[in-house]
């Protein structure tokens, strides 16, 4: 006798997206730095900003309201429209 079970999952297929090509140079690029609001994340990002600026990049700083929740959709949209690349900082 055929045994049939019901799928307990959300039945979604994972969307495959290719990565953006690695730029040959950061000179002239706009890079977003997203602080997730963990303690001392700013220490790490300040240093990264120095390094990136030294390489000729323009750095824009962003911050999540809280590290415990995903970035609000408006913030994600703003980063996507204003930046060519983004670095998200984990910290502790």
């Amino acid at each position, binding site marked *: 006798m*055929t*045994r*049939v*079970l*019901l*799928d*307990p*999952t*959300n*039945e*979604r297929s994972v969307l495959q997206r290719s990565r953006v090509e690695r730029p040959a140079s950061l000179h002239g690029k706009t890079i977003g730095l997203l602080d997730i609001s963990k303690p001392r994340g700013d220490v790490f990002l300040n240093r990264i900003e120095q390094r990136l600026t030294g390489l000729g990049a323009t750095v824009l700083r962003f911050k999540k309201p*809280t590290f*415990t*929740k*995903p970035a609000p959709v408006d913030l994600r949209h703003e980063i996507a429209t204003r930046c060519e690349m983004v670095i998200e900082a984990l910290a502790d």
Partner: protein
Amino acid sequence: MHQECRSESPGDVTCVAAGYVSAVVDLSERHHQRPILPDGLVVIVKQDCETCRMIAPLLAEFAATVYTQDDPTFPEGADPIFDADLAVSWHHSIETVPTLIRVVDGHEVERTVGWLRSDWQRITGVDTLGERLPVMRPGCGSLSVDPNLLDSLRVRFSGGVLRSRRLELADLDDEMEVLFDRGVTDGLPVTPPTEARVLRMLEGTTRAPDDVVAIVAPDLVEVTIEKVAINAVMAGCRPEHLPWVIAALEAVCTDEFNIHGVLATTMPVGPVVICNGPGTRAVGLNSGVNVFGQGNRANHTIGRAVQLVVRNIGGGRPGGVDRAAHGNPGKLSFCFAEDEVGSPFTSLAVSRGFAANVDTVTVFAGEGPRCIVDQLARDPDQLANTIAACLRTAHHPKLVIGYDCLLVLGPEHARVFGEAGWTRERLLAELHDRLQIPGRELVRGAGGMAEGVPEYLVDLTLGKFRPDGLLLVHAGGGAGLFSAMIGGWANGDLGSRPVTRRVVR
């Protein structure tokens, strides 16, 4: 090997294994339309029923369409229609035979079950009908509600309401292993979610299978009643547990509770489900002996079903979005009821604004429980001192305000407060008073410990918990001068708030 089946058109399911079509299962029998009864009188009988045999001769005295459930030749001379697949009986909710129905313009307007002479005379319009028969005889159970047939009939006639993808197992497949292989278990075997079991589970709620319960993080996917029921079957729930699972999911999938963060944190927390109301006793939830421990089906399966939905619908899996460093055993399931009957206090749900006769679940982002021992205190002040001293250690004795805590007072401890006339409000106020801590004890470096609050708070006095950050529940076995504390996670808008939802059948 298993196959994946997807419905391409009504009636057909295409099963695909390793990329090729291997079987088409005809499910057309599952798409039965509700048969329309002919106008006039309709009688449903079965031969294996003494009352049906008793009234059979009467069928010659009036015009009626007769359906027979078991013997196509019964009743003799009545020209019966054989309800071989019981479709007529099922769709017209025949629970007893004989049933006499009067139909006008395709709609039922009158019905009687068994033999009640006055009813039959009125409905048929034959004033002398059955005058020699007893005034009343009860009928027999309809074959369409026979316990041995019920599951298969439900699949046959209601299976079409289930929209989920079908997984067809090959003969040699072990269904337990298939479910492990698909990654849909929590590490323990699950009950295979067959159509019959899922349909039976859906009997536990009045909500439609395609009704959306919530949007589940982290994948932000809508979960329907049907998907909850499938996971509840896997968890081992009974149908009466389903409304509790649904309510807990409604509470968990709120911005306030923030299940995404509860999963993603490296701390060892998960949803702790606290059940309140008279329904807790009706569905067998445990609030007493071994309240957090093994041995109770309702506690374990309700909490487990919630976690399986988060895993299978929300996509929250350990090592994926779930980044807990240690986790805790309660992340398999952590659900219990408050002992309201034996409590000297108002319940948690009442303190959160619900009536005492309403069933609710409250979800709290908590770690595992830890025992608070005081076997000597006999007055409330001494016992409050002990409890406060233990609560101070939640997560770290020098960390304050940022974490809530759930205090589960055992009956023998609660009795000390109750006999002294302390209310819930009094006890919580006394505990908060005892947990006002000088900043000099809390700042970083104090006591030789680097952990603590920033130095600029040194001259302040700080509460261990925010004013509503201590939740009180009464539960546990009747013997043992113990209580339990369950530490929380980042609280308030920054993290997770406890959420209470009403349980609706």
